């Protein structure tokens, strides 16, 4: 209608809120969480894949890399990441922010991450809902937090600190766990939701981790999914695991197993299309096999979305 203000048309890839700090003009409300770009079905880029990046046959929709592996002064890994960035969008996935830790943030670490963000312009950045260092010592592991009100407030405040520093929201990932604490006062999914809402951050939902923890602690993975706020889920991880006695271990050394695929279907029914990434960190197969896993995720997404109504 004449006389009314014109609304700018924004294509899907551009519809990214300022809240995510991606540098695009925002036409979405500040509180919308579901408008990260849908990058499709990517793979975790590891050293063995570098030749495919160099000969430009690494034809994934997008790549996720471990941020800390590129916090270096120079050399081949950074060159490879530059090349990968030419091929497809890149996401920085951290393992050492120590979001749940009680040590102060390492400013040098944050500065290195900031430099990586400036250089490689990732579609988004993520880290884990866990702790990994105490007393200045790093375990280089993703250690579980107690699910308490104290921990919600503590982690959410630290996530906000990081987001304020970078001027963008981050995604936090649920980790696999092998123990829970007697002092926990809520289930993991309630904790994850509370942290995400208190911190106003996104969620990287690792479906394999949900399954692994569900088996290890005897909860229902579908109940977990039903407790996750769909609008905050910005990415999904898929991976394989292994069995050790009565426990499942998140080893990332196998194909995605059927129970995890089934849970992925359920997640898609609840959350709609979400950028999905296959992680494979040990006994890594050929790049073609890895891509085949990503293709399977794509096919499942197509099937689920064409067959069902999104319930979230």
């Amino acid at each position, binding site marked *: 209608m004449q006389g009314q203000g014109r609304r700018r048309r924004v294509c899907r890839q551009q519809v990214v809120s300022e809240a995510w700090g991606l540098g695009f003009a925002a036409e979405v409300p500040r509180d919308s969480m579901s408008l990260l770009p849908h990058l499709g079905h990517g793979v975790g880029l590891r050293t063995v894949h570098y030749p495919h990046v160099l000969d430009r046959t690494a034809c994934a929709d997008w790549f996720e890399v471990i941020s*800390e592996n590129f916090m270096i002064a*120079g050399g081949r890994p950074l060159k490879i990441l530059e090349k990968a960035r030419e091929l497809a969008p890149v996401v920085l996935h951290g393992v050492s922010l120590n979001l749940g830790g009680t040590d102060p943030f390492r400013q040098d670490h944050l500065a290195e991450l900031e430099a990586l963000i400036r250089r490689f312009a990732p579609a988004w950045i993520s880290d884990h809902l866990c702790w990994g260092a105490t007393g200045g*010592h790093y375990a280089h592991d993703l250690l579980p937090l107690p699910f308490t009100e*104290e921990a919600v407030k503590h982690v959410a405040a630290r996530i906000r600190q990081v987001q304020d520093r970078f001027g963008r929201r981050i995604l936090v990932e649920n980790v696999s766990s092998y123990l829970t604490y007697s002092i926990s006062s809520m289930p993991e999914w309630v904790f994850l939701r509370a942290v995400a809402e208190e911190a106003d951050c996104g969620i990287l939902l690792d479906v394999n981790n949900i399954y692994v923890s569900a088996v290890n602690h005897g909860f229902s993975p579908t109940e977990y999914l039903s407790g996750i706020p769909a609008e905050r889920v910005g990415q999904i991880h898929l991976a394989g695991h292994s069995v050790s006695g009565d*426990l499942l271990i998140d080893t990332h050394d196998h194909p995605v197993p059927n129970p995890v695929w089934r849970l992925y279907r359920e997640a898609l029914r609840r959350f709609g299309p979400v950028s999905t990434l296959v992680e494979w960190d040990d006994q890594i197969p050929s790049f073609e096999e890895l891509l085949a896993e990503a293709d399977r995720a794509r096919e499942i997404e197509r099937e689920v979305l064409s067959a069902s109504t999104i319930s979230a």
Partner: protein
Amino acid sequence: MRAPSLHELQRLFWVSVAERPGRDSIAPDFIRLVRGCDNRDRKTRIRVYSDAYYFRLRDVLREDFPRVAAMLGPEQFDEIVRGYLAAFPSEQPSVRYLGRALAGFLRLRKDLPNWLADLADLEWARVEVFDAPDSECATIDDLVCVPPEAWPAIRFSAIPSLQTLLAQYPVHQVWSGGKSLDMTAAETSLRIWRKNDYKVLHAPMDKRESAALEKMISGEPFAALCEAFADLPEAEAAQNATGLLARWIEDGIIGRIGDSG
């Protein structure tokens, strides 16, 4: 039992999984904090983390120090790693720095061959060089452009990935596949650098090359580099110095041919 603070819980966790790497050190107060059918179940769950801590970091060290690990053999390497992690737990967010003190740790072990610490120094230098800053390399053409009268005062800069190492043993021979467990001490200068194709290389240097390279690194002009050959007849000294420079250029360790300033 009073609920511990988050800080206290994490301290107990750390003690239980990392204070005695590869050994059982579960704090009784921590067992009580873990849900489980019984204490055996709780300990099993905690041990997933203590095993992961030790094995993951051992694998990192084995990857960074492959020759040291091979020389020690799996059992002794594991024992060294347990002691090392207890003495030098990681203090950096990136695990890449974990092995920074291993050579010094080995040097204190009087029950190990002396050359092992030198070998660790070499392997750590290779790690450092691998991800050192990038730079352009000078070419022979750059050298040809230097007018004859400028040579005495011309200065060269080393690429940032160049490192030198003074070892007490010829450990480069072990690195290349030698297995001389009773290696004879012989002071050995090595240079370690990264080529433009990102390959990490090292090479032994004789005393003259070592002296000349140190002068180049410290910014002294070509005339000073030539002093390393002062014991030779003048013509031979000049020939050796220029030959050395050509080899450095070919190896890609000279980053810039600067002015005489």
